[in-house]
């Protein structure tokens, strides 16, 4: 119910007809799934939400005609029912990192593995801005164990499936599953500038610092065997394996310290031996990438008709609100401190802070979601609305200009 104020603004309703063509989907109790819902206005949407009580609301694409009227239009000819605009979206889920996190698995998440999401945000966000030139990027907590990204620039919304696929592939480094041991293959003499920047600015530091602290990836045999298998040279593998087996019981160092020492040993060994084979040239980088580089769900990004959970929704299983994450301060985000539905209900019932959603000047707003809403408005919504207005004005001017031209001959 809170997000209604948000939805109204999120879809620049400059064109009434535009909002009506946006697909929504509701998941009701008993897992009844309703697709192709569309509404003429924000209040119609509000009304539907209040009467159906969906516990999950997804947002889809803007289609050529109102989704709920799609059957009225024939499938051939000029009035085909097809997506026309859709934000460029990304979905990163921490379960895709289960093979490299040792603290949790599956749906669980904790302060030791969440930093994987933080570094993913940094890498992708920087690239979206610097490489692709996108300006209106919203990062949202998925409510349980991941993050979503919504790129809302007009040119992003108009991308074809092929172009979306290209961007997703550009971001893809990790390839494979349990059937192959070496999932990151960075052959050749240098990293692409995007990967190089990600490595130098974010990944290397994260790997040697926070990741080692939290996961100690070389501390036990099971853990380091996995890494040794990534190296294609058997001699190097056995050399290191022997060394580490010998030192296993003798050391009085902490897990974390052992792990760091072994990492240094591995790097030194590889440094001297890297000329042995092309596959060893970038082995150190490959290991770092395997553990830290973002793993996006490609299928979510590739197609315009893919639906994604709406920001500010409540996650049905955790009760947490899907709040935005500030990419410039994502280190401070704590998924376990996000307000839950029950906390919000309590807040409302106790008549606490006014939660006046329209009052932006309230710096003393201590309501649970006040900060999130404020951030959403000022950092994302307002600039987006401004740029949409500019675009409309520009295209209007061009139209006027063109019609003027046609009179001259």
């Amino acid at each position, binding site marked *: 119910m809170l997000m209604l104020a948000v939805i109204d603004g999120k879809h620049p309703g400059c064109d009434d007809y535009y909002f009506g063509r946006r697909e929504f989907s509701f998941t009701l109790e008993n*897992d009844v799934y309703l697709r192709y819902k569309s509404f003429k206005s924000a209040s119609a949407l509000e009304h539907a939400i209040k009467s159906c009580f969906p516990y999950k609301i997804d947002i889809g694409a803007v289609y050529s005609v109102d989704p709920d009227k799609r059957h009225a239009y024939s499938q*051939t*000819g000029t009035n085909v029912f097809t997506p026309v605009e859709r934000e460029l979206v990304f979905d990163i889920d921490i379960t*895709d990192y*289960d*093979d490299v996190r040792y603290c949790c698995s599956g749906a669980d998440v904790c302060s030791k593995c969440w930093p994987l999401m933080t570094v993913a945000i940094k890498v992708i966000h920087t690239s979206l801005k*610097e*490489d*692709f*030139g*996108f300006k209106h990027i919203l990062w949202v907590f998925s409510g349980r164990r991941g993050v979503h990204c919504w790129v809302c620039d007009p*040119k992003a919304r108009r*991308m*074809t499936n*092929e*172009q979306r*696929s*290209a*961007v997703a*592939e*550009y971001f893809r480094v*990790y*390839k*494979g*599953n*349990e*059937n*192959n*041991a*070496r999932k990151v293959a960075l*052959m*050749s*003499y*240098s*990293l*692409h*500038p*995007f*990967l*190089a920047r990600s490595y130098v600015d974010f990944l290397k530091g994260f790997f040697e610092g926070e990741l080692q602290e939290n996961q100690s990836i070389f501390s036990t045999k099971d853990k380091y065997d996995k890494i040794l298998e990534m190296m294609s040279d058997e001699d190097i593998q056995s050399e290191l394996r022997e060394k580490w087996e010998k030192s296993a019981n003798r050391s009085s160092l902490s897990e974390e310290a052992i792990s760091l020492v072994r990492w240094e040993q591995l790097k030194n060994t590889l440094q001297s031996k890297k000329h042995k084979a092309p596959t060893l040239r970038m082995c150190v980088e490959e290991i770092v990438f395997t553990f830290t580089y973002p*793993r996006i769900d*490609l*299928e979510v990004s590739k197609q315009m008709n893919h639906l994604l959970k709406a920001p500010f929704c409540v996650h049905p299983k955790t009760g947490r609100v899907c709040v935005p994450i500030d990419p410039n301060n994502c280190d401070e985000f704590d998924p376990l401190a996000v307000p839950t539905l029950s906390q919000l209900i309590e807040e409302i019932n106790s008549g606490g802070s006014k939660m006046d959603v329209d009052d932006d000047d309230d710096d003393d707003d201590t309501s649970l979601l006040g900060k999130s809403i404020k951030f959403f408005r000022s950092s994302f919504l307002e600039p987006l609305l401004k740029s949409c207005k500019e675009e409309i004005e520009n295209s209007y001017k061009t139209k006027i200009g063109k019609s003027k031209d046609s009179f001259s001959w």
Partner: protein
Amino acid sequence: MEVIRSQKRTASNDVVSNPKIPLYLTAPQMEVRLEEFELFAIDRLRVLKGVSDGLARGKNPKEMDEVVNTLWKENMRHSDASEMVNKDIISHFVLRLVYCRSDELKKWFLSMETALFRHRFRLQNLEAQRAIVGEFGLPYKAVTGAELESLKERLGQVVRSLGQISPSVEAVYYKVPFEEVPDLVAGRRVLIQKGYAFVAGSQLVSLVVTQFRSHISKALILTNRKWTTTIREREKDRLTPIVEALSTTYLGPDYSQSSEYADISLKDIDQVSKSSFPLCMRHLFEKLREDHHLKHGGRMQLGLFLKGVGLKLDDALAFWRAEFSKKVGSERFDKEYAYGIRHNYGKEGKRTDYTPYACQKIISSAPGAGDHHGCPYRHFSEDNLRAALGRMGLSSRGMEDVMDKVRNKHYQLACTLTFEAVYGTSCDAGINHPNQYFEESQKILKSKTPAAPV
């Protein structure tokens, strides 16, 4: 284009375009003899089919250049240069009529014509290529001076990241919106900055191919409209029968309807999986039995294969349910997975009866964490592949032959060799569809079983 019956073509209106590869931007203003209408189309179709075969066999770009060169010479040559160009143009437009008529036909035609164009372009020299780029009227400017200097280092990094040791940054780069070169972006083969890709002269192919593809795609939609509204009816006694015959001859079977060799029931399925499934499906099947679960890609690949093999919807539902309920419970199965299976059989949604995936599609898929679909010859590590082949009963000699094909990226040939080793017979056609593997295997096994005594 006017189709006539006269013997001679009137010379004056023939269009001979300057670039070596016509762009097929507009239908030519010329007269075409009725016999040529069909013959030219058939020759071009041989070329397109050859391209399709080459791609299915996993040939690399250089090999494909050769394939196209040979195919073109064999089928489209003419002693008179202008006649050759005319044949090129006429055959393309005739095939547009043939292949605009359904989504599947359009997709095939678009892929093959684009591939054909790409390799013909690559075979041209730099000057001819620049001329063709010019023909498209693309507004991209070359990057020079200070801007080029500031990018030089990173451009060098890109070149080295593509495998060349010396940073030979090219002389000419074009600044192009990244949307125009999706395949270069996808492969990280260009530097991208603030929404612009810096495309090297030698990468121009990508640029023009995207333009070409986009143009043909739009053209096919228009052609389809014209066909359905006027041409088909108007030409029903002359061109329509020719057009309709041309498309069916050249597409391989799609296995959406199971044949006499493919009709299995649930009780046979385990045994049949060991005796007749190709490696990719065997692996999925085993993993399903082991984990009582498969992710989406695996469910699609195996599920559609089983449909092609003759598993009826009810049996399929029972089969998947029996496995999945061991992991997620039958209630969750009914809620979350049954719909998908019915969808595959064309009983839900827009009710398309989906066809089982061919090898080309499976090879080009991208299995990720937790997935088991894809082509084992491509996606497995060498060790895992050897183990799997060992379980299929291959000798070490047989295995070496197969691994040799794999190393050279001839995944379908590897599968064919496996087939030949397992069944002790040769398979000249080559495997290009898992259901084909199944049917061929069943044929052999059934012919070996003696008839039951009366």
